[in-house]
């Protein structure tokens, strides 16, 4: 039973109607996509002041379109829909995504949406970390039109994002990766259904000499109030020839960029130690993919 009592549940048919409802109800309204996260908050009475849901399922934002520029993912695409895209399953450059999509149970894969997973700004989710490593931008619609926000600028705090009050997320765009790229994601959790204690993802592009041309290292799972990139780890990795000693050093480097939280899942010290371990593992996994393994 939900502890939150709602006054109304809207199913608008267009983006314009959604914006109108957001204007009318302000902070009383919450956008509902799949509902898996919102339900969890409502069940625990953690939606103070919210008494109107705006379900955006009728907007037709469920398509995933692969083009020459990259991938356009509608906000209402389910995690299962994303996992079924052949390029995501097969392209080593997007390996971090297919890794992250192996984590949730089937019922969540069938319910949770890509847009909801991002808009929730929950630092314990897996997809944001994978998207940050791969490089993604968020598409929105609001009272002043549409805009595109780099995912790195989207997360502003614990459960807080940079959407305006009268704006909602309509999709996520991924650019097509450079040739010679690979990525990987790893997660530490207490059981098959739980949120991450720490997660990490690495995306890298390697040139013909075996040197790392470009790298993106991302971490989540409460290593900060938001999922983030580690500039120190990326700097250490970029330009280096990949050696067996390098991943551990890159793992250590993330310490400069994280400030882990403590909660019932783990202490800050444990998260800190695991952030280095998981970064090292993600990098080793990406390197293995680069060299043809999987």
């Amino acid at each position: 039973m939900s502890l939150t009592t709602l006054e109304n549940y809207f199913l608008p048919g267009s983006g314009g109607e959604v914006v109108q409802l957001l204007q009318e109800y302000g902070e009383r309204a919450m956008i509902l996509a799949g509902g898996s996260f919102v339900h969890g908050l409502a069940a625990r009475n953690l939606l103070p002041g919210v008494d109107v849901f705006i379900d955006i399922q009728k907007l037709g934002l469920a398509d995933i379109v692969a083009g020459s520029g990259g991938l356009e993912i509608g906000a209402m695409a389910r995690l299962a829909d994303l996992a079924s895209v052949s390029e995501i399953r097969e392209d080593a450059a997007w390996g971090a995504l297919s890794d992250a999509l192996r984590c949730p149970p089937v019922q969540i894969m069938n319910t949770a949406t890509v847009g909801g997973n991002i808009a929730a700004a929950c630092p314990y989710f897996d997809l944001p970390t994978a998207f940050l490593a791969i490089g993604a931008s968020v598409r929105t619609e609001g009272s002043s039109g549409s805009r595109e926000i780099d995912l790195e600028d989207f997360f502003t705090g614990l459960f807080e994002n940079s959407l305006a009050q009268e704006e909602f997320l309509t999709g996520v765009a991924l650019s097509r990766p450079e040739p010679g790229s690979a990525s990987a994601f790893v997660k530490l959790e207490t059981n098959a259904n739980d949120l991450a204690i720490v997660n990490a993802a690495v995306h890298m592009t390697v040139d013909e000499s075996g040197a790392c041309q470009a790298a993106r290292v991302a971490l989540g799972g409460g290593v900060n109030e938001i999922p983030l990139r580690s500039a120190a780890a990326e700097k250490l990795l970029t330009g280096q020839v990949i050696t067996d000693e390098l991943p551990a050093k890159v793992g250590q480097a993330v310490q400069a960029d994280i400030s882990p939280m403590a909660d019932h899942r783990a202490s800050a010290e444990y998260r800190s130690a695991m952030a280095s371990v998981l970064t090292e593992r993600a990098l080793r996994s990406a390197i293995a993919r680069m060299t043809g393994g999987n």
Partner: protein
Amino acid sequence: MKQLISIEINGEVHELAVAPQDSLLHVLREELGLIGTKKGCDTGGCGCCTVQIDGRAVYSCMTYAMSVQGKPVVTIEGITENGQLDPLQQAFIDAGAVQCGYCTCGTIMAARELLATVPDPDESQIRHAIAGNLCRCTGYQKIVDAIKLAAANSA
């Protein structure tokens, strides 16, 4: 404020007055008396409320009733045809995969999506498909055996 909606459950369309915060689970059990779908954690963690919407296994506790208008819902009560048990139901009996039984209906509904998409699953595919369903009795082995048996019997 309640709203009048229509929902298709097990092939039958029901007109219902639901509150905006009502879950599909609440409507199934409390409004329609379809108590085969169990209420466990009620927060999307245990799996005993699993039903199929558009053929996909979902937690009915975290699905708002308002959101399933126009989408066919199948519950455990809807998988028996003309008094004939679904192959999964029969296999759970034959393999002894039921102890207290509380998780059984949800687990069968999760396994049903698996067998519809992967008719001959291996053990890791079976275990992945039921990872969202907790059982505190069986240790899972006989559940896995039952799903294998159902797949073999349906081949």
